[in-house]
Each structure stands twice: as C-alpha cells, then as structure tokens.
C-alpha cells in the first residue's frame, strides 16, 4: 500500500475550500463532472440500480462545505454525491462506490445512495426521505451535551418537509436550543411532483415560524450568498443561539432518479435555470473580480476533466467488493 497523498486527503480537500474561492470553483466543476460521469457509467451499463444526481445544485454543497469544519456533522440525503465531494470525499471513492468497487467510500457495499466518511463528519447518506433530520438533531445534542462548539447540519429537499420526522426534529432542536442547521435544497420537485401539489407552503422557511426558529431564504445558485447565509447560521449555532432553517432556492437539471425523464416540467423552466447555472455565475464573478481570467477558467475546466478521467479509470480498475466484506460490519465488536 502506498501512503495516501496528503494533498488528496479528504480533510485536506475540505480545508482548501474554506480558504480559497478558486478551489470552490474547481470543486463545483468536479461535482458536475463526476455526476455527468456517473450518468455515463449507467448509460454504458456498467452500473445497475439507480442514482440521484444534483446537477444545478452544486452551489449549496460547496457553500456548506466551505462554511463548516470537518469536525462538524452532516446528515445528507441519497442525492448526496455533490455534498460528499464538497465535504472532501475523493472522486474515485464516489465513483468507486457507485460502481460497487472496493475503492468506494463504503467498499462497494453501500452504493450511490450511501456515501460516508467519518473523518469529514459525513454520516452515511440517508436513503429514506426525512430520516436524516432527527439524526442530525441527535448529533447536535451530542455537541450540546459535551459543550463543544460543533454544529450538526441536516441537508434535505423540499419533499422531506412533509414527513413527520422533519417536524419532530425541528421542534426538538428548538426546545433544546441545539446547534443544528436545517438546510433545505428547495429544487421545486418532490420526486415527480411539483412542490405546490404536495406542500401547503412553497416557501419552506415559513415552516420555521411554527418552531420559533431563525430562518433565512437564499438564492441557491449564488455560492457566495449561500455561504454567507450558512456562516450566519453556523455563528448562531456555535454561540449557543440555537438552530436555523435555511431554504436555498435551487433546481435539479435532471429527473428525480435515473429512470425519470422529468417530463412533468413546464416548457422553458429548465432553460431559465440553466441560464443561471451556479458554476457559470461563479466563474463569471471570479473573472469580473480579477481573480481569474477567461483562459484561467478554461484551464481549470480542462484540468478537472482530466482529473475525473483519471479518477474514473482508477475506480474502474478497483476490484468489486469481496464476499468476506459482506459479513464484516453487521455488528460492532
């Protein structure tokens, strides 16, 4: 076994984001390219089953990872590739997990819906809608009990706000005044259904009123805006001022899952959102600020392409999960 490359360590990858806007752009491109590659792998028949990708929602994942520390805790959903990569899991570990290979972050036993790495505070991503919210409250309870300044974040979609566990979790966090952040990626659809057909309030932050909880709505395509919003919530949590509900208005360019062609979308809606692509918006901003040139953006883009090619090759070269692994972690020792 070779020693892990320190620069490529998940914790190191995480810390790069907080200090450097250009690395945030790189990571957003990485997320987009990895998810595009996952779709290619399915199209080529190299993976069975299903996957849920998040193209269009990258800004939220990057802002979350930039605003929090590896010692904080994140409970995310089955649409979790972006958050996992942003928090630091390496592309070959995500691709390998989707492919069911040993290099995967779960050794190929979990799959696309179950990504995890304790070193960066990512609990196994939750495949049952709403399940992660009360669990995040429990992680926040741990920080409060131990009187440390950790923060627990629950990431979920608008659809999850109709599950009982979501409401029970928010209420608990409020009455116990816990260092929790409830980060809603409102992408306008719960599975195949437009939000207004399933959800009594289409502005999710209104839910916070019922729990007397701080709440902020933010443009989910603007990474700096989401970052500033999450930073305020993190400050509240770390200083003992209690939980926050954040609603990032965003959009997934693809269907709910691999088999969903998203024919339910009104004509022109996708194009409107594509015109405000979070990666392009951020790249343009960095160019306008003089932090990058147009050529610099293209160089980064090409470099990320090359890195993901290598990551995909590495993942494909890894052996499938082994039979003894199936029996290895059913019960703790």
């Amino acid at each position: 076994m070779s020693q892990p490359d320190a620069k490529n360590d998940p914790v190191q990858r995480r810390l790069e984001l907080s200090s450097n806007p250009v690395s945030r752009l790189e990571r957003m491109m990485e997320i987009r390219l990895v998810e595009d590659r996952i779709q290619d792998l399915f199209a080529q028949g190299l993976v069975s089953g299903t996957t849920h990708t998040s193209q269009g929602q990258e800004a939220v994942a990057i802002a979350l990872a930039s605003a929090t520390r590896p010692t904080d805790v994140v409970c995310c959903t089955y649409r979790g590739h972006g958050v996992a990569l942003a928090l630091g899991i390496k592309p070959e570990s995500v691709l390998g997990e989707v492919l069911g290979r040993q290099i995967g972050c779960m050794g190929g036993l979990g799959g696309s819906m179950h990504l995890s790495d304790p070193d960066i505070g990512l609990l196994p991503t939750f495949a049952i809608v709403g399940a992660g919210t009360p669990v995040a409250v429990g992680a926040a309870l741990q920080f409060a009990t131990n009187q440390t300044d950790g923060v627990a974040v629950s990431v979920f979609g608008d659809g999850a706000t109709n599950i009982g566990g979501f409401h029970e979790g928010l209420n608990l966090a409020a009455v116990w005044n816990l260092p929790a952040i409830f980060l809603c990626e409102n992408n306008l659809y719960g599975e195949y259904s437009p939000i207004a057909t399933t959800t009594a309030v289409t502005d999710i932050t209104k839910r916070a009123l019922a729990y007397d909880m701080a709440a902020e709505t933010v443009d989910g395509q603007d990474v700096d805006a989401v970052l500033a919003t999450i930073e305020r919530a993190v400050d509240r949590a770390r200083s003992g001022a209690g939980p926050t509900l954040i609603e990032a208005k965003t959009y997934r360019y693809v269907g709910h899952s691999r088999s969903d062609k998203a024919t339910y979308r009104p004509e022109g809606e996708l194009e409107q959102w594509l015109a405000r692509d979070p990666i392009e918006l951020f790249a343009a901003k960095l160019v306008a600020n003089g932090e990058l040139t147009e050529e610099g953006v293209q160089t980064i883009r090409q470099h990320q392409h090359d890195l993901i090619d290598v990551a995909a090759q590495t993942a494909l070269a890894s052996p499938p999960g082994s039979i003894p692994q199936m029996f290895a972690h059913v019960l703790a020792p």
Partner: protein
Amino acid sequence: MNQAITRAIADEMEQDPRVIVFGEDVAVAEGPFKTSEGLLATFGPLRVRDTPISETGFLGAAVGAAMTGLRPVTEIMFIEFMGVAFDQVVTEAALMHYLSGGRFEVPMVIRASVGSGLGFGCQHSQTLERWMLGTPGLKLAVASGARSAYGLTRAAIRDNNPVVILEPRSLYGEREDVDPGEQSIIELGTAEILREGADVTVLTLGQTVRVGLEAAESASWSGEVMDLRSLMPWDKKAVIDSVRRTGHLVIVEENQYTGGWGTEIASHVMAKAFSDLQAPVLRITAPDVPVPYGLALEQRFLPSPEYVTEQVAALLATKTAPEPWWEEFA
C-alpha cells in the same frame, strides 16, 4: 406484471365506486413502477390522487377512509418506506376491527414493492414480510408474476380487512399471460402447485418462485414446486398434503435466515407431519447480513437456482440439512 396490477385495480374500480387510489406519484406520473397507467385519466382526480412524501399521513388517511366507507388502494413505493408509518399499519389498521367489537371494518390495501436484485442498496432491497408476520388483523400476500399479481390484487381490494400485497420489484417488467376477469381472482390464503414432482416439495414465495422452478427444471431430483402466495393466512393444507406425498420440504426464501417466513412453515410442518418427513425441513435463505450493493455480491446474497439444486440434492442424498454457503463467514 405492472400492467396486470394496473388492470386489477382498474377492474375493481369499474365495479365498485368506493375504490380509490392514492400514493406518491401514482396519479399524474402513473406510478414510479408504472402500476397505475391510465387510472387518473379513466377515473379522475377524485378517485386517483398523488400524495406528498408523507407515509404516516396517507396510510393513516387510508385507515380513516376505509373505516368510514371507502376502499383505498395505497402504494408504498419501497417497503422500507412503510417503516415511517408502521404505527398506522400494525397498531391502527390491524386492530380497528377488533377494537370496535367487529363494528368497524378496514377494507384497505397497501401495495409495496419489495426485494433485491436491482442494485438499489440495503435501504431499498429488502422483502420485510417479517415486519408484518404474526400481526393479528392483517392479511399478507406476495405476488410472483403477472398472473398472481392480478388475482391477489383483486382479492385484496374485495377483502374487508387491511391487506398488504408485496410485489417483487425485479418482476415488474416480466411478462406472463393473464386472463382478466372474475375467474382469475385468487382467494387469499391459497397456495398453487406450479410443477408436480415426487421427491421433494419446494416451497417458494415472490421472487423465489422462479428460482425454485428453474432449480427443479435442471435437477436430478423430482421437485414439486409450490407458490405459497399468501403468508397470512397461509395454506397449511396444501403444504402438508404435498409434504405427505414427497416426504421432504425445502423452503426457498429471499430474506435473511433469522426470523424468515419459512420458520413458521417449518415449525408447523414439523408439528403436523413429522412422521411423514424423511429428512429435516431445509430452509434455503440469504445470510444474516444487510443486502449488499455491488452486483456480484447482491447476486451471491440471493439463493440462486444452481445453489438450490445443490442444496436439495445434498439433502436427499444425506437425509441431513447441508450447511449454507455462508456458514464459513457467519
């Protein structure tokens, strides 16, 4: 199979205006597994509704609607999602008739996709009959293809009790001839012999029906392959009669070894037909681990026809139950 399920629901909706359908994405999107194609167009939005992702809410609503005069047919997209709403199933729906001294009935159906083989990972690949087994007041059936899905679904909708129908999701696209109509309704609690044989009764359910049939086709032994079809109630007479003829019982289960549905059958057969058995009852199951994700491991997890063939041959040859493949890892 998905077309047969749709047709069964439509046939009952035609005949009985009290039958309504709801679940996540069952109306406009016509079902995540295409088990309600055309129902919204045919029966309209009063009778076919999409729900939020709110299993507790809509299964509870089914209980109330059923107790007060409707006959809801609900869909739980993946059986695991029922965990969110378990109270409404086993503590409310199952007990309302009893708690009202028989004055309320709860004629509702919960359809749920189950099973492994599609690479959905351990939170979307279980069969979970065991969650409901042994709950008085519930009925429980498992489809094994288009024909049984049609017959069981119609029977479930007509039943005056809460009925859970489990549908192996790997079979939704499988084709089988179905003769729609009253004659194809399958009485809940009846098993079916799909292949006659002299040496051994191979009892199967859901996705293992095709495993048992395939095993018996190429085996050196003569297997009587039976589709149990219902678990609550289950067809004790058909199973015992078959075991009396063959002298051997092998139960093929998709679930893990501990607590699988076959334990119930094995125990009963041992008690009632001990002297007819020429060897111990053999349960062929998955190992006691979560369903693994990678395709090769998931296929290994499930009993394969080849494995069933070998295990049965070993049982018949030695008259003792062979060790499972996973014994060395357990």
